[in-house]
């Protein structure tokens, strides 16, 4: 087990370094002059020279990378060109809001997805199963922006139940929660996409559990159907879902970009999107790095949780 953890940690570290190099290269090979993109086409050569000097853009690429890494180790992700604030501050402001959005939507997706999956497994290959699977697959195949706009058309324009955008100036998590009528729709859009994964995965696992000997034994002992489902089938089906939750974390962050830009949710996705439009590289670099690291941590946590919860993996790999 120890060797397994050490190896996984080593891999994770290598991947983090890889993400750093990858994003840095990607953002700096972009053709065109950054200074011009930021200052405008009418910028004078002198202004451009000052800009390049201020942000170290006149240095060779490898030096820029060394400086970037050095700053990183001091907890500094650079200064935003446009917003003139430290990138770490910008990200630190947004991460808690994303935690609220992603947390709520994941919990909602699990609450809907796991029972549906179990229900589908119990009735597998019958009409209810096919109908539910068809529904989830269709929703999963529909683009996020379409779902968002249809929900807005129905619940905001038609019935005035929820708000379509956040009022500006929301800064705190408490403010977000207070503005719950604006929070509902983005949470709904994000969870719609996760439900398909959670429910179908639970279904596959539960079908295997239902066919296994211990379930038959439990039923033969006279345990009620409900008890067997709760105690044996549900528990054993939950295990892989934990992995999925860990791994789906970055999915949701990326998916949130669409939802955030539609609903004007002040999170990481919107920050990334706005900085992409304004060629604000330090912010894009920082955001990509944070999301990449979150991905690595998510898959690491999922793997380790799996190892802790399933002794077969723990002993099998040691």
């Amino acid at each position, binding site marked *: 087990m120890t060797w397994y953890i050490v190896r996984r940690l080593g891999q994770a570290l290598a991947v983090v370094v*890889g993400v750093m190099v990858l994003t840095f290269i990607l953002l700096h090979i972009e053709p065109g002059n950054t200074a011009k993109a930021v200052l405008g086409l009418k910028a004078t050569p002198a202004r451009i020279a000052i800009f390049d000097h201020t942000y170290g853009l006149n240095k060779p690429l490898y030096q820029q990378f060394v400086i970037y890494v050095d700053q990183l180790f001091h907890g500094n992700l650079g200064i935003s060109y446009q917003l003139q604030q430290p990138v770490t501050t910008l990200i630190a402001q947004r991460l808690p809001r994303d935690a609220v959005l992603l947390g709520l939507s994941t919990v909602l997706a699990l609450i809907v997805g796991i029972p549906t999956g179990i229900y589908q497994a119990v009735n597998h290959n019958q009409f209810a199963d096919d109908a539910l699977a068809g529904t989830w697959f269709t929703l999963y195949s529909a683009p996020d922006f379409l779902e968002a706009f249809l929900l807005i058309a129905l619940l905001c324009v038609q019935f005035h139940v929820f708000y379509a955008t956040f009022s500006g100036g929301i800064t705190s998590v408490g403010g977000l929660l207070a503005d719950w009528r604006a929070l509902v729709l983005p949470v709904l859009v994000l969870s719609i996409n996760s439900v398909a994964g959670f429910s179908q995965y639970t279904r596959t696992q539960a079908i295997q559990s239902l066919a296994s000997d211990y379930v038959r034994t439990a039923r033969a002992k006279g345990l009620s159907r409900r008890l067997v489902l709760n105690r044996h089938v549900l528990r054993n089906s939950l295990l892989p879902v934990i992995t999925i939750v860990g791994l*789906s974390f*970055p999915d949701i962050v*990326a998916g949130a970009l669409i939802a955030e830009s539609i609903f004007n949710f002040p999170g990481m996705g919107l920050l990334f999107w706005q900085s992409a439009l304004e060629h604000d590289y330090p912010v894009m670099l920082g955001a990509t790095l944070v999301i990449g690291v979150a991905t690595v941590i998510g898959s690491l946590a999922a793997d380790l949780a799996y190892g802790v919860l399933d002794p077969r*993996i723990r002993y099998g790999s040691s």
Partner: protein
Amino acid sequence: MAAPSALEQAAEGGSIQRSRAPGGLTLRAFLRNRRTMSGLGIVVLLGLFCFAGPLVYHSQLVIVNLNIINEPPGPGHPLGTDEYGFDVLARLMQGGQSSLELGFAVGIAGTVLGLLYGAISGVLGGIWDAVLMRIVDSLLAVPTLLLLIIVSSMFSLNLFVIIVILSVLSWPSVARLVRGQVLELRTREFAQASTGMGATKWWILVKHMIPNTLGICVVTATFGIADAIYALSVLSFLDIGPPPPFADWGTLLTNGVNNLFNGYWWQVYPPMIALILVVLAFRQIGDAMNDLASGGQTGRIYVRRRRRMGFLQISTQFDLRS
């Protein structure tokens, strides 16, 4: 070794049976499967609609006619007109062409790249394999949408450039999948026998590894098509796709939802139905083929995709441990 292997049996004079896995992804199984065929039927119909349709249904899509913008369905325009006065039905055919062309090109190119990379990594093994796979992991760690936005802003886009970008971004998960398969195949008897007879790594790669991973590649390519069409629609929505004369179903749908609150429903539902149908059909085919390949299980094995927006992210999560 507890049981004598097939080779040992053969050496002792026993007969080698041509062993076949039950089920399996064969052409015959594909043709007899209800789900693959229904998906294929939808794809063929949509393909005919987009490529043969314009031969029958003529409408000019060049000159903007402001006299007939946003007209509801009626005589002359069965599905109405859009905000430029173009016929929605004709635009649907035109948009579908680029969506389908892109889907097929990216699905195939991304899979071929991934197949080569993964197979080479698996055959090389050792430190090379570790390095090559960490590169894949790094690419997978950044959500594809972010990479797509970064890369798309670098180039002036047209259909070909988009195809290249999406292909380059979609291979890593295929590579990981193929590499896992190759690692497993390397331990099999036919590979060992081949090594024993003096075959080089590269001979085994070409002769055994690549042919044996083709099944899984057909599945991933099918998902890749769906994902590429989906990704293009998202790009179009974010307005970082190719500039205006270009249209795909995503462009039409985006224009439609922007006019949703004017009540121009005929601009929303046709591209919506087309886009969902095509994505659903390819995923249905891929999913059913995946079931066939994994031994004809009756259960709908949900091919877990690692990212919401990610393409070709197929059941990689348990592979992390290998």
